[in-house]
């Protein structure tokens, strides 16, 4: 076992003494960047030994500078190595390389240095790198090892042989330094910017085999400063060097730098596209169904440690499609296990919800509802074309990886059609659903410092800004605070942005300095103030997607809420659509608010004006939907009797009828302070 620390120390000393011994003039040809690493780090243009010494001192004796100066010195003295070795790569070639990196036709840069234990190891590693769209640079004996086992090297094979000694590895860094100066706007001499660029933007990794001398170890060890992970597939022991088996080197390196290969086609005998999402499968067309009350079925998505998830693996427990009678209902458990460095437990429900979309993307597969209420069908046509239950798993694994490339590194799917196993797993899933509900329910606006915005609807309501809080979901009902958070992580430049709450201006009304600041900017200066919990003062603007409209009824001193599905007239004298036409389009309309259904159940529901206790009317269809949860809420508040005091169209169709109804039930609004 070689101690990297000791070797690097000795290597630095040796580099230093060799630096002191060089003389005369030398430089690279066909570049505008002099000795690029030295130029980028120190700003010094080196053309001679004296200048090299000066730059070396200026860099605080950085081994990268020494390595580069010595390499250039030797190339000038002895001439370039003969082909296939490339030596220093000219700017013109580098420009095309930079192009491919920005273009995405190569995903990252890899340096492989040293002597692999066996030719097969090297060949396998390089094949894997080629398959994963990496551009690989080779330094040292590995090149001999590859050519002897018949692997072709050269830029056209994405395997660039830099030089016969591992010291040629410095060219890997001069490439990164030039890409940083050409494409990254890094100014020569600004070492800080260079390091930041290399760390954050350069998708580069190094894989080291045995056979490096002390100087070369010092050189490679200095790569760590640039945030380039050094993967050691040999007997090196260093703090920052990551030891792996050769077979795991590529995967480990790519994971560390967050380099991901995107999936493009899904290998199943069924088309898969959002175009099929709305297509349902009727009973007569169905081969088999799962769940829907006829058999036990559930779905669950869980995050797991990276080591426990094998990407793309699909397991079917129980009978396949051909062992299930046509037209019958079979049990189904869909368990999706995902791993990803940025994946968090709290994202699980948001991703799990996507199972619904993805299964519906299949031309012959259909899905409704969620959790243990799911109902899934496969069509006869699809099964005749060869679709198996397993293919649902392949589809799900691929779609999750495609749609969440930054979040998920690996996805594996287990499908259970064995009744006993399905039932047992469903019981376990039930506990997880419960935990999640408790977690979301428990979240309060006061627990977080950041809300999320949604400006998705600015396409047609250009100045509308939704502010989404744990206790007030988006007015469309489709995006909760957690959804906003995850959407931002997935697409940092997208329509959901974090909104810092800032100082409280009025907690009762829900007005915050940070929210006002954000709304002012995002509404293009149109809206100065925004109250999150008030309908009267600075209410939130509306686009047109609101699930419900809340409005004040001055005659009875209360609010009413009407949902989109209710087509009749309301006690305000207007229908939902007439009301929607008057409040939408991004305007602030005191007395009116566009809200989601679940906001009615929130403790923050228009609390500035008295909250739920001021609610006097909602359509029977909406009450029916919310009743269970509303009763629970009211019971917690100790006002359970309120549930029967809220009128609907059968009890009061006009404002006059509503007024007398409220008196007859002694609604609390009668005793509340006037709204106006």
């Amino acid at each position: 076992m070689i101690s990297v620390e000791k070797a690097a120390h000795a290597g630095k000393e040796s580099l230093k003494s060799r630096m002191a011994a060089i003389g005369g003039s030398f430089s690279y040809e066909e570049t505008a960047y002099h000795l690029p690493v030295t130029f980028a780090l120190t700003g010094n243009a080196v053309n001679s030994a004296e200048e090299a010494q000066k730059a070396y001192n200026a860099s605080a004796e950085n081994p990268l500078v020494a390595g580069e100066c010595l390499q250039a010195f030797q190339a000038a003295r002895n001439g370039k190595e003969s082909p296939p070795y490339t030596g220093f790569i000219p700017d013109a070639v580098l420009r095309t390389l930079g192009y491919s990196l920005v273009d995405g036709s190569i995903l990252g840069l890899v340096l492989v240095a040293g002597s692999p234990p066996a030719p097969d190891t090297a060949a396998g590693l390089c094949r894997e790198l080629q398959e994963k769209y990496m551009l690989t640079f080779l330094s040292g004996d590995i090149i001999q090892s590859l050519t002897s086992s018949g692997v072709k090297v050269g830029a056209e094979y994405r395997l660039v042989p830099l030089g016969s000694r591992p010291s040629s590895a410095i060219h890997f860094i001069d490439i990164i330094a030039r890409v940083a100066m050409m494409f990254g706007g890094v100014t020569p001499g600004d070492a800080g910017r260079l390091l930041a660029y290399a760390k954050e933007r350069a998708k580069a990794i190094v894989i080291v085999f045995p056979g490096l001398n002390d100087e070369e170890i010092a050189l490679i060890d200095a790569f760590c400063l640039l945030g380039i992970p050094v993967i050691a597939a040999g007997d090196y022991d260093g703090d920052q060097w990551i030891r792996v088996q050769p077979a795991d080197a590529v995967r480990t390196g790519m994971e560390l730098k967050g380099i991901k290969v995107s999936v493009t086609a899904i290998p199943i005998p069924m088309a898969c596209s959002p175009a099929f999402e709305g297509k349902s499968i009727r009973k007569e067309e169905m081969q088999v169904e799962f769940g829907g009350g006829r058999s036990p079925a559930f779905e669950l998505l869980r995050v797991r440690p990276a080591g426990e998830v094998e990407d793309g693996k699909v397991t079917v427990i129980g009978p396949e499609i051909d062992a299930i009678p046509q037209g019958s209902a079979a049990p189904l458990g869909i368990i999706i296990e995902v791993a990803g460095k940025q994946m968090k437990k709290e994202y699980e429900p948001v991703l799990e919800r996507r199972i619904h979309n993805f299964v519906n993307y299949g031309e012959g597969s259909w899905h409704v509802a969620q959790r243990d209420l799911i109902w899934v069908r496969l069509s006869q046509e699809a099964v005749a074309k060869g679709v198996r239950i397993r293919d649902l798993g392949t589809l799900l694994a691929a779609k999750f990886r495609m749609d969440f490339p930054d979040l998920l590194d690996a996805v594996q799917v287990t499908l259970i059609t064995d009744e006993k196993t399905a039932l047992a797993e469903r019981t376990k899933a039930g506990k997880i659903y419960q935990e999640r509900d408790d977690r979301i329910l428990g979240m309060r606006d006061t627990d977080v410092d950041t809300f999320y915005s949604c400006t998705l609807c600015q396409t047609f309501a250009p100045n509308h800004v939704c502010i989404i809080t744990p206790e007030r979901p988006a007015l469309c009902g489709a995006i909760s605070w957690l959804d906003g958070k995850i959407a931002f992580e997935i697409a940092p430049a997208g329509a959901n942005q974090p909104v810092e709450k800032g100082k409280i201006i009025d907690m009762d009304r829900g007005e915050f300095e940070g929210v006002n600041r954000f709304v002012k900017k995002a509404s293009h200066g149109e809206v100065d103030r925004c109250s999150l919990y008030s309908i009267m003062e600075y209410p939130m603007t509306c686009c047109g997607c609101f699930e419900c409209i809340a409005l004040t009824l001055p005659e009875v001193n209360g609010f009413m809420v009407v949902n989109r599905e209710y087509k009749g007239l309301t006690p305000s004298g207007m229908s939902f659509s007439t009301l929607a036409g008057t409040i939408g389009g991004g305007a602030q309309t005191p007395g009116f608010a566009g809200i989601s259904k679940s906001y009615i159940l929130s403790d923050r529901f228009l609390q500035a004006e008295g909250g739920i206790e001021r609610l006097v009317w909602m359509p029977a269809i909406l009450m029916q939907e919310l009743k269970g949860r509303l009763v629970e809420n009211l019971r917690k508040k100790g006002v359970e009797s309120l549930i029967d005091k809220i009128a609907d169209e059968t009890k009061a169709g006009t404002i006059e009828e509503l007024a007398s109804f409220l008196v007859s039930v002694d609604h609390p609004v009668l005793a509340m302070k006037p709204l106006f």
Partner: protein
Amino acid sequence: MMGLSTLSEWTGRIGELVIGASHAEGGTRSHVVRIGGERDLPYIGTHPSGHKPLVAYELADDPSLWPAAATRYIGDWVHDTADWAAYAEKEYTPDLIRLHLTSTRHRGFSDTSRIGTTIESVLQATRLPLIVEGSDDPAMDSAVYQKIGEAAEGERILLGTAEAGRYRSVAAAAMAYGHSVIAQSPIDINLAKQLNILLRETGLPSDRIAIDPYTGALGYGFEYSYSVMERIRYSALKGDTDLAMPMISSATDSLTVKEVREAQGSEAEKTAVAWELYSMLPATIAGASIVCVRHPLSIAGLKSAIDSLWNGENVEGV
């Protein structure tokens, strides 16, 4: 007579974009053009802010994929792209030439070296700053844009067209060879903004982006484009830096609308020119810095109309 006065206290400013590189800058253009720089809406004030809108003449390397209404008038010049460009520069004096590489749209196209030759010959034939439009097939983008970028290195061309799903090759060519990029979104302010952010994330500086909000033909959706251009400009002037880039608008579909296609005899040229003129002049009023036409006779009318608005002439009678 004074021009119109400003409507609002704007806080933002549109960025400046330079197209073309002179000999001193390493290119071969006789002059370079600057667009953008506005602090107010177009044509406002006695001395409007920013640079005057410019007119680009569009041509194609394969005229068989170009509207008949455009090629008919030009005649035989269309058979040699470089001659066509030189002739148009001399006869019709547009401010820029916009070359569409329609040859790349043929099925199975692979002759990227010919694109390079075409671009080099057009650059030699005309001294005007150049806009070049590459392929519209993601499968060949990488090869095509690299070739364009390389062939025009040093000339600081405006390179089109980046879209939300396929912007990497265009951005890469611009960054590697020192060009600027047209960022096109389908008549949607938010997608325009998102694309600008995506381009910025590749490392392309915002002073090398021109927004193309996509322009529908007059009578076929132009009003949507006009409205989106206005909104992009309002947002930019109100301080949204992600939208504070100059805009380019092209009467792309004007020469293929039914009215132009079916116009007969002496009406044919008049209808074609009218359709382009009355789409592109309003586009400058909505904020476009470069307007593009395909009928050569549209150029003079458009330039003189822009001049009169710019200089505040004829405002008295309005």
